[in-house]
């Protein structure tokens, strides 16, 4: 107490500031930095959850590099990213752009778009899984069969399965992106549009010269945010392919599912940690690259 009362106001402020900061710092150290460091350490070891952790050096990484499944999974993960991010952003922007102009039942329509975002990914995945089933239970195929159109193998196909799983993932994230886009659209000062109207420029010019450039901070945020989401895709894939996780023939398996499988079915914790480190590095690089490309000059 004596020590505290001897401090001047400036020092007391510093003490209090660090006192409050200590809580998140300790929290982050314990639940973020320590496990991350531990995972990196584990990626150089072998451990089956039961015995001791033994040193393996670079063996896990060597196995990874020569594992054809890993490269397939690597490709899938990027497919989710390069299909998912642009498609979801373009669709979300188109919807937001037009919804912004709609006055009739605006709130209700916006809520309808937001609804899937609030739904549990697991429940949603199972409903879509049922939609995709072949005759006699699948909604889509039953519909096709009614009109005499041949069935489409959605999930039981090496080419259709990945897009089929991506579709509900894009759909589910749409609500969030629309809300953010609309907030961004509303933030653009009306004076620019008024000036454009006086100049009599076309709607396309307004869109490409005013709206999109001024939406840049919103776009940067959404690109980074949704890229991370697609790189970490798991719930949809796992729940729609539980019988043959990531299948058929690994055609839908993303990195996170491979990590899960290696760790909790194969009990090969070191190898799973090595895969995690690779994923961590990719996420970091992709985020940094996007921030660099889309930075304000």
């Amino acid at each position: 107490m004596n020590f505290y009362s001897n401090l001047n106001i400036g020092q007391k402020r510093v003490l209090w500031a660090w006192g409050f900061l200590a809580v998140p710092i300790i929290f982050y150290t314990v639940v973020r930095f320590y496990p991350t460091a531990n995972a990196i350490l584990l990626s150089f070891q072998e451990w089956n959850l039961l015995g001791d952790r033994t040193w393996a050096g670079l063996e896990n990484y060597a196995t990874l590099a020569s594992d054809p499944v890993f490269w397939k999974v690597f490709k899938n993960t990027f497919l989710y990213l390069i299909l998912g991010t642009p498609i979801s952003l373009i669709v979300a922007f188109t919807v937001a752009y037009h919804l912004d102009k709609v006055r009739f039942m605006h709130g209700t329509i916006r809520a309808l778009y937001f609804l899937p975002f609030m739904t549990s990914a697991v429940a949603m995945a199972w409903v879509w899984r049922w939609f995709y089933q072949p005759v006699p239970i699948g909604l889509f195929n039953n519909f096709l069969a009614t009109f005499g159109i041949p069935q489409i193998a959605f999930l039981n196909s090496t080419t259709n399965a990945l897009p089929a799983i991506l579709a509900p993932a894009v759909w589910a994230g749409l609500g969030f992106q629309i809300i953010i886009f609309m907030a961004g659209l509303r933030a653009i000062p009306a004076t620019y549009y008024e000036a454009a109207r006086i100049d009599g420029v076309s709607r396309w010019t307004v869109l490409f010269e005013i709206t999109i450039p001024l939406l840049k901070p919103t776009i940067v945020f959404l690109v980074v945010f949704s890229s991370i989401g697609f790189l970490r895709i798991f719930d949809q894939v796992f729940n729609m392919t539980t019988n043959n996780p990531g299948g058929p023939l690994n055609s839908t398996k993303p990195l996170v599912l491979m990590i899960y499988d290696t760790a909790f079915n194969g009990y090969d914790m070191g190898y799973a940690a090595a895969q995690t480190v690779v994923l961590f590095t990719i996420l970091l690089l992709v985020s940094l690259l996007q921030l660099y490309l889309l930075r304000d000059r």
Partner: protein
Amino acid sequence: MTNLFKGAAGVSMAALLGTTPASAVEIEYWQYFFEARVTAMEQLIENFEDANPDITVKMNHFPYADYRTKVAAAIPAGEGPDVVQLFYGWLNDYVDAELIQPLPDDLFPAAQIEEEFFPMVSAMKQDGRYWALPTAVRSLALFYNERLFDDAGIENPPQTLEELVATAEKLTKKDGAGNLTQVGLTTGMTAQDHHWWREVLLRQFGGTPYSDDNRTVTYNDEAGQEALQWYVDLEQTHGVTESTFMDEPQAAFKAGRAGMHIDGSFRIGALNDTRGLKWGVAELPAGPNGDRYNYASYWVNAITSKAEGEKYDAAVKFMAYITSDEAMQIWLETVGELPAKPSAALTDENTGDAVYGPFIKGLEYANTTVFVNESAQRQAMTDMVSRIELQGQSVAESLAQAAEEEQKILDEYYSE
């Protein structure tokens, strides 16, 4: 009843005198949580404590997902169970990590175990000693839908593979465009078919899945090709099934959209709860030469390395009780899993039972796969069929590739 009375009397005497038996010892038993298993074990513990008033058994159970981690963390710390339940496929890992100790030779002599138990428990033997024993086992059988059988005018379930195909053909229904609306037989390597193919069909066509030491894949030969061809023909030639029909084989059967379905004894409970489904059970069909095979799997109990001194003695007594005929019968009635000893399983009442009978008969000719990574090994089977169905790979090539992939899994495990 007398035991119960004695136990109750003992407890009240102890309470009156304010003492506990001089050599009171408490041991812990761990298993993963599955309601019927916990109920059965509570019953067994009660009976055991009545017969051994100086021993108390405390049961702990955990969700399946945490089970392995908890065991691994607790035993080395001296905190965990004295008797532990584990999946038979984990035995090697538990032995290597020194989590369990071998059963004492004097009370559990290998020769006696081999005489008393079904032969598949030999998978629990390492270096001439037994490390663990099951209370109950599971085997496969053919479930069939009685209503669909009646509608199609079929009187008896098929006895051979040939009859299986013929029966399945009668039970298959298609719509005008040729889409299946009802399958004769469910299939799917992702369900129980990988066991059926590996331990039953393959052997019926004259092959073997693995070498005697379980370290080499031996199915990449002519017998393997014939067995695989026969299996994929069900869908491709006979058109009596579709591997993704109604998402999961058991779902199709439960919904009454499948005439026949191969599954394990653990499915009995779920099917009993399905209203409006009239089903029967038959032994798996015999092969081209009349041979019958089956696959059995089980959970085992073992004494952990933590149990020492008095606790070890108590743990041994407990092991002896939970592997007794009486315990097995209680387990069958409560959980629906089959006794691990012929003396308990092959009673007239059990073999004559319309539901349990076919499973129990299957135990006599059942084999157990010594898995090193069950899900990865199943995946090799699933992919083997997928390559043929989705990519048009030839049976011989796909089989060779599967054998190679599975051999890699075995090599990685055994090289450590």
